[in-house]
Every structure is written in structure tokens, then in C-alpha cells.
């Protein structure tokens, strides 16, 4: 039955195809019609010739009677053919996909090419000439851009940028190496007489070498997506193929210009110009792409009101970036690549989730569609007697050199890269990388672009390119899967991220960072660190919507929305289970909430906190409870998550709020950049907390002093375990005893600190970074934060006696954020500056007073 279905489909395909084919053979004759998405150039050519050759169709201008219906083939001919061809190609893909036992052996791309052979054969049989073929213009302007845009937009960004060095080295140096060696080796063989007499000069050989060295992303994606190799290998091959296209096109243009100039006119200046133009074109294209990415991101900030076409903007602007680069003779492929890679993060944050999905699917449809057509037409184009000029020596040697030099290049570059990689690329991965150098439509397109006047042997080159393409796509494609299995290449492990995994990943990063600090060595790389700082500070501000930028709002919004949606589901689930989880959880949550209110309230009236009765009854709830989303609902959601299809929100929460490790975003130690290089809020927050906990453990151990009741201002995690009405006391009972590192505040070191402090305190940098996140309540209920003077003075009066009592310890928790860093600053001035950066506006008045107490 299945077979008959397939057979029927194949029949349908052939019928549809032969309709289109016959229509053309009837009407157009032997005019070369390029397959065309929406082309204009060949459309006009097409129509003009077909009008000449038409016998019927167009109604004559003079009519004798009113026709009821007329045959208007010529009106719709071009779009009709285009649509029919698209349908044909897609049916081909459908036929391929239906035969799983075949696609498991032969990759889809290979099958499509083979189907293309068949279709081409039918056309040839009907026409005795190849009416359709892949015309470079159409390929480069209408088929390629969406594939590249899709690939770059869906690129795993982090992976891409963390391997960017390796990718660039392979793409630039590897491609140049391939182009140069294949070209020269072929030329040497030609000189040695291996391919008879050909009218090809050394420059032409180099040009050919350049075009044949393009590793094709389309072919690579098609093959590698079916193989599921590990992600590093995938990104290396894929990223390389993507960037290498750009490089190849640039190389091609340079050599093309050299060929036009002729060998005699090439002197050192021209070569230098060629090298310069290589870099200008490549980097200019990339830069243009980044500019367009910025444009797109900024545009998506304001497209909220036209959500319907939001996704369209990205497609159009991406296409424009391609065309603009082409117009400026920069590298169009690199332009659209970088456009997609750079803007993805921001537009995903800016646009509505629906638009993101729409965009993703639109791009996928377009990319897969044109990919299919490209492969089919690669097959169709081959069935053409005119392009085949056979030269066994040339063809075989080309294949041989392409493969051999690819291997040499990849292995050498990987060897170089492995010298400094943490995780070396192992030998099997290298082998697969080299083997995955599939050539594809870009090479064919470039070969078809060759000018026959300048290169008399164009057809030989075109034919050879086609054979190389078939060889790599079909043969290497078929053998890739068994090879990967046989070599036991590490496969991609598809792991669903768990909270554990996420938490521990971050913990590992922190650990590594700490170890790097302890070893006193620079961490991984300077660029990521500074970029992430720059991004946080400026780029996000420019490119992201303000509400997308603020971390908590979307989360809470999402929580809220999800909670509403889940509420019904949750109740049903809870009832079905009959569990008490709901009730228990509700209780605990509401208790926490009440306690929190009390704490917030305590914060509000810090001045006479000691006398205040924490009884929840006294709290004017309405005035305190400003949080529109009661925290209880979060628990409902948490509880329900198990039954939810995705537990995104907790992951999201973790993602957003886990402190970033410097390993991840800023893993380098640099003296001059230290105080500005981190996300200041976060760093401050961590720093304060560290110092506070150290101080607590120190004091409780050494002094036996109760850390001031002001601690209630910063309810910590263990406040959750406190009895309800007394948030401050328990700190006395379990004050981080386990982390007591015995900060032996021997008088020597503390006086040293004091001196240091005194000396340094005058040159406080003005960069006062207010850090509201430090005090959790401030985030939740903004009204709480407003009397800072009140809080400060309150602190001061309350703190002062205890300072005097202790004689020499001014480090009360609230003061700590001004004073604590001093302890750290004995060996470094930077830490001091850092710490000072956290001072609030009112800090300067406060500081002198503290000094005097201190000294």
C-alpha cells in the first residue's frame, strides 16, 4: 500500500512536471529560460520570444464577437511556470521524504539531485535541449539569501561566538589555502602534461581553485542535520561553511579581476590591492551586516503596533542587507550572515513571542523551499550536452586535489588550534570536519558566472564543478553517516535542561572563576568579558525595549499570565491527586508573605525599629502591599509545573537571576578595567553579601556580639526560617557558623587597613552607582525605598553606640557596604575604588563621621 502511495505521488509529480515542461516546449521553443522565483530579466526575455513564436494565445486585437472565455497563457506564463516549478520541486522533496528506507542511506540532498537528473532527462527528451537551468543571478538573488538568513538567524549564538576564532581561522585561512593549493597544483599538473592541451593560464587555474573551494552551507546543513554530530563539531563545520562562502566569493572576485587585467599587468601594487580589497570586502560586508542588525533591532523596538507584519520586517531588511552589500560590492553573504547572527538576540527579546515563531517558521519554509529547488536544479542543469566538455585528467585531478588539500588544511589548522584549546578537537572530529567539506550550489553558481570571453574553458570548469558537487554531495553524503558511526564520533547529546543542571552549571562557572582567581591567572578571554559589559551597558539600552531589558518585569508578567492560565489546570490536578500539597503550600506561602510584609514594614520605620511590635496585625497592609502580583501565585505555578508541558518559567527565573560568573561573561582580570568591567549592580550585590556574611561569622565567633538588629533591613534566606514576629533575633543563634574563617582582625592588620582607608578616602571616584537591588524590598515595593535619608540617619544613630561599645569595629552590617571593602583593600587599590563606587549620594556626608569613629 505504502508503495502504491509513493508511486502515485511520483506519477503526480511527473504529471505536474510534464505539464510545465510541455507548456514550455509548446510555447517557448528552445529559448533558455532560467528558473526563476520572481525574476524580471528573464521574464521579459521569455515573454518577448514567446510572443514571437506564438500561434494562439493572445487574442487578436480585432474581435468579431464577444468571447466567453479566452486562452490567456501568455499573461500568466512566467509566474505560472515559476509556481509549477516550485510545486514540482517540493513534490520531489515529498517523494524523497516518503521513502524512509532510501533517505536513511542516501541523504535527501543527494536524492533531490538524482530526481533532478530524471526531470532534466524528461526535459531533454521533450526539448532536445536544456530549457531550464540554474541561472546564477536567480540563485544568488532569490534562492540563496533566505537560506543564509535562516541559517544565521537560527545559529546557536553562544556556541558560534565561543568558537568564532576557530571558525574564522578555518574559513579564512583554510579557504585561501584550498584556493591557492588546488589552483597551483592543477596548474602544475597541467604544465606537467597531465591534461593535454587546454587554454587555461595560471590565473585561470587560481580562479577555478577559488570557486571550487567554497564549502557549501546548503549541502553541509542538509547532510549534517541528518547525522547529529556533537555540537562543537557541527558549529565548526557549519560556521565555517557559512563564512567560507563569503570568503570564496571575495577571492573569486579578486582573481576574476586579475584574470581580466591579464597576467602582464599584474604587479606588486595590484597584488597588494587585491589583498586589501579582500579584507575590505570581507570585513566591510560583515560590518554592513552588523549595521543592518542594529537597524533591525531598533526597528523591532517600535513595531509592536503592527505585529502582523513584524516578522516581515526582518525578512525584508535582511534581504536588503544582502542587496546593499551586493550594491556596494561588499560580501553579501557575510553581510546577511552577520545581520542574522547579531540581531537574533535582540529581536527575539523585542518581538512578541508569536512574531518570533512566525519569523522562525517563515524563514524555515523559505530556506527549505529554496534549498530543495537548488538541489533539484543542480540535477536538472547537468542534463545538458552543451556544458559537457570532458577532460579526464582535469576532472579527476580536481576531485583528488580538492579532497586531499581539504584534509591537509583541516588537519594542519586544527593542530594549530589544538595547541591552545581547552577541549582539543579530536582526530575523529577533524576527520569528519575534513570529510564534511561538501561543495555545492555556490561553487556551481560561481562557475556559471564565469565569463566565456575571458575564460575559454568555462564549460570544462562548469562541468568539473558539477562533478565535484555530485561527488561530494552524493558520495560523501552517503558515506558520511556510516563513517560517523564507524569512527564513533561523539553524537549530539540531547539533554533536557533540568534545574539541577542549570544551577550546577552556574555553580561550576563560579568555582572555575574562583579557581582562576586563586591561581592568579587570566581567565579565558578578554573580549567576551568586555563585550558583555559593553552590551549590558549600551547595546541593550539601544537595541532592546525597556521592558524587555528589565529583568523582572517580563518574568513576573509571564508568571502572572501563566498562573492565570494554569489556575484551572492546577485545581483540577490537585483535586484529582487529592494531595494536601496545595493547602500546605498555600499556608506556608501566605505565612512567608505575611512575614515579608512585616519585614518591609520594619524597613519602612527603621528609626524606632527596636520598639516596634512586629505583630502582623498592626501593619497597614494596603499601604504596604503594592506588589500587583501576589507571591502566592508563584507558588501555585511552581507546584503545578510538574504537570505543565514545559517548565520554562523556573528555568527562566534561574537564567535571569543566577549571578553571572565572570567565567561566562567577563573572565579576565585586568587591572585597568577592573572597576568598570563588571555589571556593577550585580558585582556590588555579591560583594556586599560576601562581606556581610564574613563579618557576621567573624563577629559572632570572635566577639560574641549580636549583629545589630538593623539586619532586619536585609532579610536573608534564613529569615525564612525565623519565627514570625522576630526577624532580627535568629541571626544571633545561627549566624553562618559554618563559614567561620576566623578573620583574625589582629590589630596590626586592622590598623593597616585604617591607614589605608584614611589615605585613600579622599579620592573617591564620582561614579556613585546606586544599587537598589541590594535591598530586596526595594524592588518589590518601590514606595519603600524613598526615604533614604531616613534610613541612613536611623542607621547611624542606631549603629553608633555599638561601635563605641566595641571600641574598634565600625563594621555594622549597614555600614558595611562602605567599610567592608577596606579589609579587602590592603593589597589592592582597585578593590577600594570598586567598593567606593557603591556609595550612595548621601555617602560623602556620612563617611567622615565614620572615619573619626574608626580612628
Amino acid at each position: 500500500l505504502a508503495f502504491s502511495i509513493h508511486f502515485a505521488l511520483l506519477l503526480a509529480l511527473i504529471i505536474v512536471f510534464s505539464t510545465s515542461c510541455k507548456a514550455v516546449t509548446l510555447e517557448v521553443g528552445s529559448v533558455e529560460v532560467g528558473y526563476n522565483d520572481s525574476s524580471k530579466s528573464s521574464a521579459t526575455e521569455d515573454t518577448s520570444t514567446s510572443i514571437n513564436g506564438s500561434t494562439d494565445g493572445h487574442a487578436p486585437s480585432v474581435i468579431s464577437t464577444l468571447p466567453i472565455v479566452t486562452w490567456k497563457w501568455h499573461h500568466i506564463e512566467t509566474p505560472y511556470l515559476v509556481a509549477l516549478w516550485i510545486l514540482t520541486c517540493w513534490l520531489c522533496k515529498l517523494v524523497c521524504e516518503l521513502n524512509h528506507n532510501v533517505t536513511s542511506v542516501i541523504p535527501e540532498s543527494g536524492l533531490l539531485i538524482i530526481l533532478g537528473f530524471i526531470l532534466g532527462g524528461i526535459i531533454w527528451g521533450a526539448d532536445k535541449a536544456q530549457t531550464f537551468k540554474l541561472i546564477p543571478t536567480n540563485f544568488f538573488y532569490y534562492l540563496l539569501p533566505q537560506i543564509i538568513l535562516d541559517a544565521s538567524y537560527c545559529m546557536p549564538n553562544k556556541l558560534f561566538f565561543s568558537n568564532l576564532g576557530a571558525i574564522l581561522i578555518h574559513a579564512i585561512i583554510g579557504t585561501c589555502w584550498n584556493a591557492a593549493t588546488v589552483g597551483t597544483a592543477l596548474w602544475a599538473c597541467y604544465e606537467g602534461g597531465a591534461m593535454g592541451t587546454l587554454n587555461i593560464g595560471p590565473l585561470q587555474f587560481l580562479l577555478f581553485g577559488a570557486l571550487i573551494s567554497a564549502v557549501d552551507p546548503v549541502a553541509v546543513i542538509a547532510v549534517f542535520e541528518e547525522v547529529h554530530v556533537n555540537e562543537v563539531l557541527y558549529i565548526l563545520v557549519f560556521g565555517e561553511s557559512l563564512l567560507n562562502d563569503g570568503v570564496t566569493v571575495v577571492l573569486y572576485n579578486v582573481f576574476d579581476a586579475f584574470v581580466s587585467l591579464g597576467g602582464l599587468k599584474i604587479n606588486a601594487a595590484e597584488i597588494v590591492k587585491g589583498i586589501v580589497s579582500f579584507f575590505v570586502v570581507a570585513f566591510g560586508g560583515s560590518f554592513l551586516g552588523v549595521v543592518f542588525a542594529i537597524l533591525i533591532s531598533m526597528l523591532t523596538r517600535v513595531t509592536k503596533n503592527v505585529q502582523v507584519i513584524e516578522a516581515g520586517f526582518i525578512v525584508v531588511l535582511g534581504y536588503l542587507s544582502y542587496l546593499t552589500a551586493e550594491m556596494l560590492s561588499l560580501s553579501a553573504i557575510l553581510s546577511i550572515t552577520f545581520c542574522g547572527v547579531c540581531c537574533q538576540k535582540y529581536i527575539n527579546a523585542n518581538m512578541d513571542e508569536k512574531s518570533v515563531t512566525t519569523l522562525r517558521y517563515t524563514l524555515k519554509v523559505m530556506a527549505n523551499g529554496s534549498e530543495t529547488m537548488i538541489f533539484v536544479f543542480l540535477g536538472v542543469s547537468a542534463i545538458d550536452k552543451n556544458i559537457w566538455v570532458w577532460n579526464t585528467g582535469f576532472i579527476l585531478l580536481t576531485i583528488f586535489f580538492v579532497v586531499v588539500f581539504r584534509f591537509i588544511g583541516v588537519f594542519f589548522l586544527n593542530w594549530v588550534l589544538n595547541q591552545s584549546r581547552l577541549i582539543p578537537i579530536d582526530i575523529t572530529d577533524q576527520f569528519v570536519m575534513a570529510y564534511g567539506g561538501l561543495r555545492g550550489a555556490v561553487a556551481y553558481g560561481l562557475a556559471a558566472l564565469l565569463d566565456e570571453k575571458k575564460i575559454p574553458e568555462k564549460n570544462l570548469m562548469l562541468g568539473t564543478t558539477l562533478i565535484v558537487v555530485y561527488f561530494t554531495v552524493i558520495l560523501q553524503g552517503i558515506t558520511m553517516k556510516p563513517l560517523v558511526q564507524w569512527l564513533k564520533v561523539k553524537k549530539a547529546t540531547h539533554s533536557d535542561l533540568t534545574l539541577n543542571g542549570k544551577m550546577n552549571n552556574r555553580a561550576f562557572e563560579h568555582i572555575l572563576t574562583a579557581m582562576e582567581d586563586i591561581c592568579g591567572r587570566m581567565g579565558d578571554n578578554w573580549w567576551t568579558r568586555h563585550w558583555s559589559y559593553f552590551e549590558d551597558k549600551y547595546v541593550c539600552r539601544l537595541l532592546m525595549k525597556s521592558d524587555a531589558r528589565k529583568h523582572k518585569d517580563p518574568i513576573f508578567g509571564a508568571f502572572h499570565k501563566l498562573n492565570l492560565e494554569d489556575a484551572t489546570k492546577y485545581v483540577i490536578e490537585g483535586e484529582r491527586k487529592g494531595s494536601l500539597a496545595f493547602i500546605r503550600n498555600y499556608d506556608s506561602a501566605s505565612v512567608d508573605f505575611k512575614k515579608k510584609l512585616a519585614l518591609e514594614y520594619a524597613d519602612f520605620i527603621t528609626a524606632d525599629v527596636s520598639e516596634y511590635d512586629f505583630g502582623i496585625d498592626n501593619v497597614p497592609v494596603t499601604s504596604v502591599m503594592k506588589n500587583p502580583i501576589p507571591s502566592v501565585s508563584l507558588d501555585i505555578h511552581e507546584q503545578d509545573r510538574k504537570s505543565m508541558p514545559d517548565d520554562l518559567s523556573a528555568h527562566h527565573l534561574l537564567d535571569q537571576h543566577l549571578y553571572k560568573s565572570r567565567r561566562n561573561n567577563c573572565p579576565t582580570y585586568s587591572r585597568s578595567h577592573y572597576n568598570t568591567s563588571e555589571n556593577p549592580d550585580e558585582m556590588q550585590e555579591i560583594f556586599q553579601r560576601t562581606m556581610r556574611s564574613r563579618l557576621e561569622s567573624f563577629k559572632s565567633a570572635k566577639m560574641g556580639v549580636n549583629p545589630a538588629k538593623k539586619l532586619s533591613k536585609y532579610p536573608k534566606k534564613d529569615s525564612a526560617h525565623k519565627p514570625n514576629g522576630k526577624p532580627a533575633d535568629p541571626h544571633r543563634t545561627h549566624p553562618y557558623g559554618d563559614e567561620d574563617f576566623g578573620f583574625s582582625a589582629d590589630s596590626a592588620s586592622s590598623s593597616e587597613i585604617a591607614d589605608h582607608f584614611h589615605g585613600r578616602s579622599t579620592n573617591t571616584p564620582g561614579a556613585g552607582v546606586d544599587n537598589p537591588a541590594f535591598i530586596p524590598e526595594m524592588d518589590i515595593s518601590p514606595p519603600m525605598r524613598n526615604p533614604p535619608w531616613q534610613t541612613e540617619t536611623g542607621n547611624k544613630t542606631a549603629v553608633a553606640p555599638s561601635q563605641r561599645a566595641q571600641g574598634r569595629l565600625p563594621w555594622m552590617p549597614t555600614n558595611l557596604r562602605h567599610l567592608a571593602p577596606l579589609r579587602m583593600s590592603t593589597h589592592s587599590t582597585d578593590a577600594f575604588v570598586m567598593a567606593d563606587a557603591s556609595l550612595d549620594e548621601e555617602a560623602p556626608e556620612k563617611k567622615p563621621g565614620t572615619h573619626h569613629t574608626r580612628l
Partner: protein
Amino acid sequence: MGSTNSTLLKIPNVEVLMQETGFSPAHIIRLHDRFKALDKEGRGHLCPHDFGAIKELAMNPIGDRIIGAFFSPGKETVDFHTFVKILAHFRPVDKDRPKEPNSPEPINSRSNKLKFAFQLYDQDKDGKISRDELLQVLRAMLGMQVTDEQLESIADRTIQEADLDRDDTISFEEFRKSLEKINIDHKMSIRFLR
């Protein structure tokens, strides 16, 4: 490399140390220099406040725990050998080094790396991460904007994910299982210790 040798000779039992940790002489020397730089008073061992003087560590949300990991319980000091051995946890695994069947498990093995991470959570050393211990770490690592309720629900869920025997704690075995899919060799290795 006369200076190299002389530095090496100054370290007692350097051969044993290299054997145990797998570090090359260059690493040992580099770490020794660092050790001396940290040990300002030249006592030959490090105290917690020596680590506290590394200012970046104060920026690390779990920095104190990491410092604590250098000190075995009850001890206030760490000597060079222990220092190097702790750092040896983070040496990338080398595949080409021949594996002697009867040699002890190297310090940088997967399970040792995991053990190191585990003990950062397990502060009371009972071999289990309790909910409170997890909460402490989470509180330290998560931003202050996360409310306690959210924190607790995250902790609950985290335990739920890993807890196989339903005792509401995470044992080392469970910890290891929950991280089975993560490539610890990659995540817990430092490049320059290679």
C-alpha cells in the same frame, strides 16, 4: 633552566606531588609562585584571610564556600601540597596519558570533580544536600530580586528532580546522576592547568 630546577628543589616532596596531581614542573613552579605571593607573611601556609585578600573572590557569590573547600575541617591553614591538590581537581583530563590499571584514581577524575562541587553544597558533611543547604547556595547565587517564595519553590523542585529515594535530600549518588548528561570534564577544567 637552572632556576627552574632550583625552585623545584626548594619544594619538599615535589616528585610525589607531581605524581599525585599530574602537574608538570612548570605548573608546580607557577603555582608555587602564586602560593608564595598569596602567603604574604611567609609562613609557608595559607590562612583563610590570605584567600580573602584576593579581591575577585569577594565578587564571587560562593567564594566563601570555595575558600572553605581548601581547609579540611578543623584546620585553619593549608600548605602547598594541599593547595596544589585542590587545584589539581581542575586539571583537564588528558586522554593520551597512558592509564596504569592499578594506579589510584586521579584527582581530576570526573567523580572527584563532582565531589568537590558536592562538598560546596554539603556544608555539614553528612553526605547529603539538605533543602536548607541548597537554599543557602541558591540564595547566594540568585539575585536579590528573587523572592524567598520563589527561591524555596526552586529549591523544592531542584530536590524533586534529583531526589530518587524520596528522602528530600540529595545524596552524592543522586547528585552524580542528576548531572550525568553534563560534560564535567569540560565544565570543571581550567585551560591553563593543562
